[in-house]
């Protein structure tokens, strides 16, 4: 099989299916599956999957790239598999992190004990662009700032996982987790009979329950929840509408909501209807033109006053972004110790802060071996992967870092694990990461699974869908 040949060649990366020429246990039933599938059938199935995606309308427009707004994210049919034991550890680590991040947010918008204790530099918090002065002193319902925490993980060995970054604002992609599973179950029902795979399809229900659990105190009875979208031109609009549909809540734009008296209302054909919880998928800056960007047409004028006086909850809370900043990231293990009194279960990737002189010196001398990221960047833009870059690119980054060191951090190039992936020539290992979605409300919950992103280009370590990455179904096997 083509897959083994490649796997042997790339020996430095952990291959999640093959180890020492043997198939690892979680993948044991997949070997037979691939053998039973001749190329012709595979191509047919691949086409079928694509047609399904296109028909349900799940597409992804790449921000700022123009081109076809109906472009599909490539879907790879080869699933990625975790054992129950592997997942149990990940789950504990992810939940621990989500709790610590929320404790941090409540603290820095309150008395800032962690700063006073000298465990994190004050300027990283208070001078952070994502720090929101207008919510200082406000404790949101149940003390939760970030209700959906997306934690990006990479694997480098059988028991080695690292957290690449945290997403505390509005992590996207969960619709792919759900659709990938749906499509796999439709196309390969046998696989699901042979393998005992934990379901993920209760995610919308859990999300709804989570949001309902953080309704403001002024709300009596069953809270009205809405999803606030920037509109149908947004690249993630499909996801917004998909989640609204599965949760049975309205998908609203800013113009559909208005403030009157102590509450927020939505405009319906029968008159105003009160809204209690807003799951917003727009950035802080656009939420309320009275409080933030006055030119924003996407938000709801007066919303922040209602929020701060307890008339509505906004999820995630404005200001939550200060916890997922790449410079603050370095201190998450410290948060876990400080707030929870525990040792971190999942490790951070060692990170050099270019703002620090020693770190900067090291980074500039070793650019060819490092990954450099912008502190406030996202989506794989403004990033340097040293070993994959030309001398010219490295020199440009050298100049940029020297000019504005505070805007850059660097990390070692991680040996991202690979999983078998269908490619033109057959099956070959490709690098993957994982984004599980942790829900934080009255309870902290995690569905067993997440979004596996795969770098489809041979040798590539960049898995972002905006940079040619694809997605896979992610399985967690039952005990």
């Amino acid at each position, binding site marked *: 099989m083509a897959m083994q040949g490649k796997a042997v060649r790339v020996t430095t990366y952990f291959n999640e299916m093959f180890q020492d020429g043997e198939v690892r246990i979680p993948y044991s039933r997949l070997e037979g599956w691939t053998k039973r599938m001749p190329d012709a059938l595979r191509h047919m199935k691949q086409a079928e999957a694509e047609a399904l995606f296109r028909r349900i309308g799940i597409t992804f427009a790449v921000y700022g790239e123009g081109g076809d707004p109906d472009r599909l994210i490539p879907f790879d049919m080869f699933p990625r598999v975790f054992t129950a034991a592997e997942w149990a550890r990940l789950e504990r680590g992810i939940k621990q992190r989500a709790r610590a991040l929320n404790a941090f947010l409540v603290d820095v918008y309150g008395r800032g004990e962690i700063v006073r204790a000298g465990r994190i530099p004050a300027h990283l918090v208070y001078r952070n662009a994502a720090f929101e002065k207008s919510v*200082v002193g406000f404790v949101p319902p149940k003390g939760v700032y970030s209700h959906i925490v997306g934690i990006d993980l990479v694997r480098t060995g059988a028991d080695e996982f690292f957290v690449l970054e945290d997403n505390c604002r509005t992590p996207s992609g969960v619709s792919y987790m759900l659709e990938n599973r749906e499509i796999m179950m439709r196309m390969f029902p046998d696989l699901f009979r042979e393998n005992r795979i934990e379901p993920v399809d209760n995610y919308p229900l859990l999300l709804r329950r989570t949001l309902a659990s953080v309704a403001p105190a002024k709300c009596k009875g069953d809270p009205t929840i809405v999803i606030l979208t920037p509109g149908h031109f947004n690249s993630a609009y499909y996801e917004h509408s998909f989640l609204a549909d599965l949760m049975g809540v309205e998908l609203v734009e800013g113009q559909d909501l208005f*403030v009157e008296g102590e509450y927020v209302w939505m405009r319906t054909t029968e008159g105003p209807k009160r809204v209690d919880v807003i799951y917003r998928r727009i950035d802080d800056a656009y939420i309320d033109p*009275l409080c933030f960007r006055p030119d924003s047409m996407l938000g709801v004028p*007066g919303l922040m006053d209602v929020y*701060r006086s307890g008339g509505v909850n906004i999820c995630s809370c404005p200001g939550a972004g200060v916890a997922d900043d790449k410079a603050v990231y370095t201190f998450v293990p410290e948060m876990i110790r400080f707030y929870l009194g525990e040792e971190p279960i999942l490790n951070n990737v060692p990170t050099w802060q270019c703002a620090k002189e020693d770190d900067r010196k090291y980074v500039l001398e070793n650019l060819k071996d490092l990954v450099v990221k912008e502190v406030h960047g996202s989506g794989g833009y403004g990033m340097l992967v040293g070993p994959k870059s030309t001398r010219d690119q490295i020199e440009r980054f050298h100049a940029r870092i020297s000019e504005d060191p505070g805007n850059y951090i660097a990390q070692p190039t991680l040996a991202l694990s690979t999983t078998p992936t269908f490619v033109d020539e057959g099956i070959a290992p490709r690098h993957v990461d994982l984004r599980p979605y942790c829900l934080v409300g009255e309870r902290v919950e995690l569905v067993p699974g997440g979004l596996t992103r795969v770098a489809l280009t041979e040798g590539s370590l960049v898995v972002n869908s905006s940079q040619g990455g694809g997605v896979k179904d992610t399985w967690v096997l039952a005990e």
Partner: protein
Amino acid sequence: MILTVEHVTRYSYDRPVRGLVQSHRMTPASHDGQRVIGWQVEVSDGLAGGSFRDGAGDHVASWSVIGPVSHIDVTVRGEVETRDTGGILRGHRELVSPQCYLQATALTHPDDALLALAEEARAVPEVLDAAHLLCERVAKAILWTPGVTQSQTTAAEAMSQAQGVCQDHAHAIIAAARAAEMPARYVSGYMLAGERQDAAHAWAEIHVPGLGWVGFDAANGCCPDERYIRIASGLDAQDAAPIRGWARGDGKERLEVAVAVQTVEQ
């Protein structure tokens, strides 16, 4: 000193608007320098929304008006007992870290003249002295002249025009102070008018280690005393604005303001 305030803001629209929402920072908080005896804000045809005290210790109140409406009056009436604390803000309950007031905004972005001022301030060893120096320099650099600047005039523009009003003085102090790594903020309030100043007033506060926030009024060349009532603070005039509003409809807005601050004979 006991001061009374009467402040009416009238919004008129050439065509009726369908509805209106406002966020007010118009009610003073008590601290060592001022004790609120009575204070009322009313909005004609208005529906009072939520109100709270924000992290900077300022009272925020939400109002809405159900249209169609062609004009609204926002009326403030209040009475405050004040005393001189040498400009030092003491006994004001707030939680926002002074470090939050180091970021430049569009209105307070420093140009070369302001950076030069900041350099001068940096050279002064004591922060309090540096703050006084900035206040003096700005008072000299910007001649108090009403009517030449607008609400959108930046600190840098006011410096190059060498003319402006209290808002411009405050912005210039703030811009230079922040460039010198001294936390600084904009304060809106009222002042018992001398012969030349408007009663709706604004000044700057600079954070001095050991003392806390200290007010500086370059327009009058002094620190706020018992003639001043402190209402709200922010990164700049926009952030500290007494009224931020939004109207649904395409009527053109016109604004009229009348303010009176008086002393009550004791």
